[in-house]
């Protein structure tokens, strides 16, 4: 703490193109991840009205292996000038937007694609593509493998020690599945989830049931970023990047279940920096895409962004309050990772942009400030605020 506030980047870049392949259940796309990445990037460039060959920067996160150098010849790339991955897993998504903005503002690149593509192959997807084979012996020796289990431990602490009602998990799931009904792309649009179906669904790892966990999908999702100046002349309403801090404070990082506070999603410090850098606060946000690998981690993310605290979470996290168009804070308006599909969280970025454009399947009327929080519980996380021209 006590370090300077970064305002240099505020509103200087914008997302001007979004591209998505259809979402397929894992293993059913019939196309390799590289081809899905190309399809998403080309679609995003066309959406922006920019030739794919003009893209000179490539930024992703996690274990994305479809790097720019592998796509150059297929995109007709004239010159690749910037490429990077942001640490570590889904926590890095908004940070990837921030890194792309850094490259643009410093003149290292002009047109940057931020993207993620996954396609099941060989059954090693979770281990390699998501978990990156970095699960500690302290966990694997003791029966802990999946993110569902690690997140379950944190959420159990949130419920039993912090007193957050367990029903907040169900509310989060009901909101996402409700929004998915109006999204023709969503894999879970026909699930017809209600309280009874949720309550009767099988346990995965307590306190998580089946419907608390994100879906595994095959798809590619990409966005195109350029300078705010160039964005004015393009065909889409720009979604300006107001801030996208990444990081972790003392008590967080790789700590093998010794994090403090344990129920945290990792946003302590990072979320406060977002508000300081953008000049906005939680009360100003019109709509939010809350990365929910598991519902309970989304609850922690909402608390750490100061939308509520553990004592008020039960009042704030209700179906009515989180549902578009009339809720106080509509979240996950495409169905999110739970009900739309899980491309390591990247589809939450395109939905955050659609809300600024006015083209969401569950549009919040007049939305001008759109939040997207990165993968919760990651050893480093990031969070981003996007806005229309009136917010810059």
């Amino acid at each position, binding site marked *: 703490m006590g370090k300077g506030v970064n305002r240099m980047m505020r509103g200087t870049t914008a997302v001007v193109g979004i591209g998505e392949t259809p979402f397929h259940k894992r293993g059913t796309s019939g196309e390799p991840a590289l081809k899905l990445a190309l399809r998403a990037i080309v679609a995003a460039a066309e959406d922006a009205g920019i030739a794919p060959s003009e893209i000179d920067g490539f930024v992703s996160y996690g274990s994305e292996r479809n790097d720019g150098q592998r796509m150059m010849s297929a995109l007709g790339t004239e010159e690749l000038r910037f490429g990077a991955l942001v640490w570590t897993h889904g926590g890095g998504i908004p940070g990837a937007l921030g890194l792309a903005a850094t490259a643009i503002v410093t003149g290292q690149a002009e047109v940057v694609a931020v993207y993620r593509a996954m396609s099941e192959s060989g*059954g090693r997807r*979770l*281990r390699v593509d998501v978990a990156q*084979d*970095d*699960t*500690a*012996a*302290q*966990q*694997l*020796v*003791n*029966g*802990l*493998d*999946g993110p*569902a*289990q690690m997140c*379950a*431990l*944190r959420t*159990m*602490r949130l419920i*039993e*020690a912090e007193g957050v009602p367990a029903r907040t998990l169900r509310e989060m799931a009901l909101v996402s599945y409700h929004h998915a009904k109006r999204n023709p792309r969503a894999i879970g649009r026909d699930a017809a989830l209600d309280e009874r179906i949720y309550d009767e669904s*099988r*346990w*995965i*790892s*307590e*306190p998580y049931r089946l419907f608390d966990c994100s879906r595994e999908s095959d798809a590619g999702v990409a966005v195109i970023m350029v300078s705010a100046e160039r964005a004015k002349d393009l065909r889409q309403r720009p979604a300006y990047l107001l801030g996208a801090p990444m990081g972790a404070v003392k008590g967080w990082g*790789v*700590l*093998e*279940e*010794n994090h403090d506070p*344990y129920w945290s999603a990792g946003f302590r410090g990072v979320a406060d920096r977002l508000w300081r850098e953008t000049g906005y606060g939680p009360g100003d946000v019109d709509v939010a895409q809350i990365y929910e690998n598991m519902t309970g981690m989304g609850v922690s993310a909402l608390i750490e962004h100061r939308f509520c605290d553990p004592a008020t979470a039960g009042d704030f996290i209700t179906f009515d309050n989180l549902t578009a168009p009339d809720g106080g804070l509509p979240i996950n308006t495409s169905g999110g990772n739970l009900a739309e599909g899980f491309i390591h969280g990247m589809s939450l970025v395109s939905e955050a942009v659609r809300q600024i454009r006015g083209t969401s399947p569950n549009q919040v009327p007049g939305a001008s400030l759109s939040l997207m929080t990165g993968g919760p519980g990651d050893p480093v996380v990031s969070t981003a605020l996007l806005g229309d021209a009136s917010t810059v």
Partner: protein
Amino acid sequence: MEYSFRAHRIAGGIGADDRFWESLEEGVFRLPRCAGCDRWMWPAHFRCGGCGSWEQRWEPVEPVGSVYSWTRSWYVFDRTAERAEDVPYVVVVAEIPAAGGARVVGVLDGPDEGVRVGAPLRGRIDAPSAKSKGYAAVRWSLAGE
């Protein structure tokens, strides 16, 4: 001594806890303290971020504590499939006051009806087995009030 875990090395995580696994195979539950400033440093690491020392002392600790958090897993996960016949099983994060509140993960043994945050725990050491992926492991039991 030939240590089983070295032949079954898991590469993830920080990887500064070899002495922990060696000690368990020797039948002793040890946790590390910084040799410079004496604080418990867990999970083990190569350097103390507080005082800068590169040395640790591994001290025997009585495996007694309480449930910091817990989960009952009902799904056979890919890399812990050796425990399929035990599903559902409970994993606890045990907080150990005698080691500065260090938290150590372990599978719960015996009746699990009373498992909740704060419940007292006592641990014992299991020899390396397939279920624990060739490592020795601490198994916790609810100790009763």
